[in-house]
């Protein structure tokens, strides 16, 4: 028996390779159940975990790509919505302007505000209309809410509007109910006030202040604001009338120049 074990030991290499050839030969006969079983075992043990990882990574990548696309779409949709919202607001403003009738003898020339100047409140505004559009100095400027100011300088393509909030601006005005007259001015300390109104005046909070047409710049009937407070000092001849302008000077966008019809 010793010679057998010696022979096996000597031929060990050959036996190993022979076994490999034999197994390979068995597996080389394609389509047998052994092949399919081995393939299934290899697939389950060595491929399947990595296929799962690969699929998960691919899925994650696809989800990430989709997420990126959706974010882009969301941004685009938000921009579109905000643009639509802006268009709607503009539309509302234009609709309200369409309902506005200019004073007799005047036509409306639309203009867009391209810049404003001022510290707390805008006091000057530059508009995109100028001498080429027949804009001249001292033309009144309004918007759908009321009187805004007057043109003070004109260049061929642009004009500057002095707003009612400018300290140098004065408007000859009257009280809508009592027809009493005064001068509207604005100061940083007191805000908009109606001066030169006697203490005997019947003016009260809530009264409408409109332009009187005196002074030659603003036509009569343009709304300036409403009275918010009236004080009658005993030792002074005039009331102190505080007015809230109807126009919001912080949000002026589209303005209208009142042009005299020739």
């Amino acid at each position, binding site marked *: 028996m010793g010679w057998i074990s010696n022979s096996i030991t000597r031929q060990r290499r050959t036996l190993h390779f022979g076994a*490999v050839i034999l*197994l*390979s030969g068995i597996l080389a*006969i394609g389509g047998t159940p052994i092949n399919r079983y*081995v393939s299934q075992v*290899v697939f389950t043990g*060595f*491929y399947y975990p990595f*296929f799962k990882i690969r699929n998960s990574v691919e899925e994650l990548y696809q989800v990430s790509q989709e997420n990126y696309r959706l974010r882009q779409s969301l941004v685009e949709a938000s921009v579109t919505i905000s643009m639509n919202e802006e268009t709607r607001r503009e539309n509302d403003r234009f609709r309200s302007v369409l309902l506005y009738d200019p004073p007799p003898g005047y036509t409306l020339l639309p203009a867009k505000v391209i810049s404003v100047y001022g510290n707390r409140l805008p006091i000057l505004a530059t508009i995109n209309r100028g001498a080429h559009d027949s804009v001249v100095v001292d033309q009144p400027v309004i918007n759908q809410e009321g009187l805004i100011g007057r043109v003070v300088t004109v260049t061929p393509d642009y004009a500057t509007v002095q707003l009612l909030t400018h300290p140098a601006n004065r408007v000859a005005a009257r009280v809508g109910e009592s027809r009493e007259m005064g001068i509207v001015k604005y100061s940083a300390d007191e805000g908009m006030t109606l001066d030169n109104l006697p203490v005997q005046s019947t003016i009260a909070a809530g009264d409408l202040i409109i332009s009187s047409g005196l002074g030659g710049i603003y036509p009569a009937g343009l709304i300036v604001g409403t009275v918010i407070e009236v004080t009658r000092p005993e030792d002074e001849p005039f009331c102190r009338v505080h007015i809230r302008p109807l126009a919001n000077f912080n949000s002026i966008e589209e303005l209208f120049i009142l042009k005299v019809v020739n």
Partner: protein
Amino acid sequence: MTRLIPYLLYLLLVGLHQVILKDVTMIYNATINLPAFLVLAIAIYKSETSSIWFGFLVGVVMAGGMHYRIGWHALILASLALAAFHYRQRLNLDSMYSRVMLISGGVFVHNILSLVVNQPDAFIYQLWSNALLGAVYTALVVWVFFLFKDGKITFQKFKAIF
């Protein structure tokens, strides 16, 4: 039993390569032949018996998706391992370049034999576009591997470049 763990990890690495790394590292149709590289490296550093059986198992794992070709791939890699082992015994493999040459040559032979088994119809075209380019690509990877293994490149040296 613990001696078998590295071989099992190598087989898992072959599975990982077949499923993920092969596609990720492909350059112009040339792929790294990691199964052949592993078998030849084992043949260089381990015993003959280990090399033959490892070659056989790598062949089985590598062709796991094509059950009718498992036997051929197992036989090719086992034979390659045996041949590489005997070359290693007869050659002076102290030189890194001789090891790279042996593995590159082995990979090229394996690529050719795999083509004969898998795609005999497109053999001539694939010989250059796939087998040769793949062997060159694998040789580069093997060269970098041996540079690291022999300590000619270390991470400290690599970091020192920057």
